[in-house]
């Protein structure tokens, strides 16, 4: 059963994270406003709580277990891999010198 959960893609790129945060904040705020007005009209605070919980559940589904359209659309442009032969020997002594200075 765990393999099903592990197979759901949950990794998100940067733009997707921003979109996810905006989406869940929007959903919860809208459900809060609707819940407050509805509770005020029928004079039962329990319904306000239920509506906010429903908004929480909806935004859970949308932002946590995201549909594939939201992630990996804007992958970060990583640097290309540096060539190993010339790069590493010169970098290592410089890094060790820097660490001694920091101490």
């Amino acid at each position, binding site marked *: 059963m765990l393999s099903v959960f592990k197979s759901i893609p*949950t*990794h*998100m790129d940067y733009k997707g*994270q921003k979109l*996810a*945060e905006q989406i*869940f*904040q929007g959903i*919860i*705020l809208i459900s*809060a406003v609707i*819940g*407050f007005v509805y*509770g*005020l009209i*029928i*004079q*039962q*605070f329990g319904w*306000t*709580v239920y509506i*906010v919980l429903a908004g*929480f559940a909806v*935004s*859970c589904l949308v*932002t*946590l*277990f995201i549909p594939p359209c939201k992630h990996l659309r804007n992958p970060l442009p990583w640097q290309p891999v540096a060539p190993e032969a010339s790069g590493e020997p010169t970098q290592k002594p410089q890094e060790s010198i820097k660490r001694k200075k920091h101490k």
Partner: protein
Amino acid sequence: MNTVLSRANSLFAFSLSVMAALTFGCFVTTAFKDRRVSVDIHVSKVMLKNVDDFTGPRERSDLGFITFDISADLEPIFDWNVKQLFLYLSAEYATKSNSLNQVVLWDRIILRGENTKLNLRDMKSKYFFFDDGNGLRANKNITLTLSWNVIPNAGILPLVAGSGHVSLPFPEQYEATKSY
């Protein structure tokens, strides 16, 4: 925000903050409401005894037995911020030894959703009406008031006295029933 747990944490915390703001909003909408209702109390019978007071020092004190009727409509008090009402009937009087005495005779809890129209007949007091001494006999003025404590979902717990009380004199002798 790139792991499920991080997003879930952020989502949950935001939901709780929104819930707290909504609860504060619920409090604000009912904070200045007047919770008084007119109450009709009627006493049908009073009897007085002089017995050993087991609740205090070993001396004989006055013990009163009251039979009363209450009718009130508490519907306007209940709104979305009221969880329950704690009603109590209290007797207030003055004696030679104490200038102010207040004794609770009867109480009841009314939850939201229960029947809010009170129409009680021939009720006996729930608690003993002991006086601190012998001040009840031939007392000219004993006032019975129905008050309630409003218990809200969010906010202050006001103590409200119902508008409508009854004052009555107590009998002159012990073991003599006085009817009104």
